[in-house]
């Protein structure tokens, strides 16, 4: 057990060091969050907000069936996208870490995956439209290859295209943490398992997955938060047919209906926090990240 370092002269230092982060977060996250909560209790008169304390926004929110539909839809999207990105993230990371032999190739292939993310999300999302459209590249190639003779309609402006776009935009957020976790697994542990007769599947379930659980947890937190918070992908990729919680919120904001939007925001935030808390309960991210090595 490595003992703690001498602390004689450095007791004030951590507080000074963490101050900038704390201040920025309090000002640009803490206060805005508090304001949103406060405004959620304000009243609305046409387009003017009245600073009082009413519960009308919440009662309207919970009273409308649209709310539940939207939440159900958004949560469904989140879970589907999470599952797909998890499989992709795990498989790609596994390939890069365990099957690519040279570090140089590993880095090059990893970079290859990250380059698309340097282009704006909006453009990348838009790029699916000509690709999946009736006359788009994908349909054209399918027809040219003879797989089908009619263009596939469901490809665009449907749930399918929404999910595809989400996966396209957010898979990197799953790959990077998992890759990072996996790369830190001590190869000797795996070799010992193989030596002891474990099949490849067993090695994956018993060793690789448990040892990369921090990466999986982090990636899941990112993806779920991003999908739950999205408002433009769903609108554009569904051709306006579908909506999400935040998309509805953005509509309200556009017509200056801040209090109802704020109430919706608080509700969403609580739900997302619950989802994230569930993940953190399974994997103590803080302890793993702070590098306190367990035996």
């Amino acid at each position: 057990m490595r003992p703690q370092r001498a602390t004689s002269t450095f007791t004030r230092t951590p507080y000074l060091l963490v101050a900038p982060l704390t201040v920025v977060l309090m000002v640009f996250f803490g206060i805005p969050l508090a304001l949103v909560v406060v405004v959620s209790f304000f009243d609305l008169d046409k387009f003017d907000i009245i600073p009082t304390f009413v519960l009308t926004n919440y009662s309207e929110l919970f009273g409308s069936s649209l709310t539940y539909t939207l939440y159900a839809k958004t949560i469904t999207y989140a879970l589907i996208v999470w599952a797909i990105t998890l499989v992709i993230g795990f498989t790609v990371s596994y390939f890069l870490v365990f099957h690519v032999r040279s570090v140089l190739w590993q880095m090059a292939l990893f970079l290859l995956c990250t380059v698309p993310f340097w282009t704006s999300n909006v453009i990348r999302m838009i790029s699916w439209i000509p690709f999946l459209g009736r006359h788009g590249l994908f349909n054209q190639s399918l027809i040219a290859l003879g797989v089908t003779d009619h263009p596939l309609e469901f490809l665009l402006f449907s749930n399918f295209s929404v999910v595809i776009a989400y996966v396209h935009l957010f898979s990197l957020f799953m790959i990077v943490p998992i890759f990072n976790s996996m790369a830190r697994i001590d190869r000797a542990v795996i070799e010992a398992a193989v030596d002891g007769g474990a099949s490849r599947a067993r090695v994956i379930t018993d060793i690789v997955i448990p040892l990369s659980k921090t990466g999986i947890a982090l990636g899941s937190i990112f993806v779920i938060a991003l999908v739950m918070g999205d408002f433009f992908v769903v609108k554009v990729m569904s051709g306006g047919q579908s909506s999400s919680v935040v998309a509805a919120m953005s509509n309200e904001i556009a017509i200056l209906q801040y209090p109802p939007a704020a109430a919706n925001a608080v509700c969403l935030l609580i739900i997302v926090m619950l989802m994230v808390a569930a993940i953190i309960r399974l994997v103590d991210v803080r302890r793993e990240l702070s590098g306190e090595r367990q035996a």
Partner: protein
Amino acid sequence: MAHSGHIELRSVTKRFDQTLAVDDISLTIPHGSYCCLLGPSGCGKTTILRMIAGHEAPTAGDIRIGGESVIGLPPVRRGTAMMFQNYALFPHLTVLDNVAFNLKARGVGKAERHQRAREVLAQVQLDQFAERMPAQLSGGQQQRVALSRALITKPRVLLLDEPLSALDEFLRLQMRGELRRIQRELGITFVHVTHTQLEAIAVADVVVVMEEGRIEQAASAHEIYTLPATAYVARFMGGQNVLAGTVIALNDGAATLVDGTGARFAAPATSTAPAKGQEIACCIRRDRIKVEKLRGPLSSLAEATNVLAGTVHAIEYQGSYVKVTIDVPGREQFVGNLPDHAFLTAPLDIGDAVVARWATEDVHLLTGDSTKTTTGVRLPLEAQKDGVSQHLI
């Protein structure tokens, strides 16, 4: 006294949360001596080293170097320098910049500090490696760089944290001599932490055997090996067998003990005469034991003193001697180191019934009154060699 590397630990204790790492230790290390802190993992030796260095602060007690208390002083102001286990060479700096680091921290100009670093590197024959990165050096070379880096600060005390454990056996033996030679040349105090017994007695003037935060014995290497104070030291050093019994007779300067199985042992009883009826332990050096095949019935040994009968459990060839481990019913295993020519004249096999005998004057009573502080008796090399070096590879 200001430049003296005389180290004094007075009632030093170190507690980490709930663990007591160092328990009220007092120790004196004379200036210019080579001191080894020896013990198993977790005994507190590294903690003591780090407290002398200034990387840990004691929970209680005082540490003095050169007569002045160094508590609260940062490492650089104590006149100490440390050589870290695994060396901790800065991976992003060249060998030259590594060695010159202390000078850079003190603001010495580039040309001057590079020149001085080169001089120090030349002393360990590494000057042509000056532009290399640490990762490109072998273990032994890295160690010499780490040593140079520490010595360029002209310390009065050099602290070495298991300096040889990262090296392979051959290099280890070579560097052992190097360290000893450098210490003699510089005339400064070396404090060397290790868990290898033979290493400690090979290099040190003073060996401090520790266990669980306490000093078991602090004395010269010869004393530790031949005259251990406690059963722990006797067992840990590895050259002894430990026997225990109750005193039944005291005559002619010898005490006779009987143990639970009825075996009788006799040991010279000197100034610290044990009382009759007292339970006491004694030890006998492995190389002072004669082992031969049992001839005649076991009963003939009934009243014999300093004799044990048993079965050969293992035989290990060690070059100049053969280590014979004997299973004796009712007690721990008994080991005899037979000179190789003796063994070859009368070889033994695993499973043979054997008898081990030894002389009374070779038995040493473990009175437990060890010198917990030491005056650092430095025996002349001749006396140290006696009976010790023949078992060193």
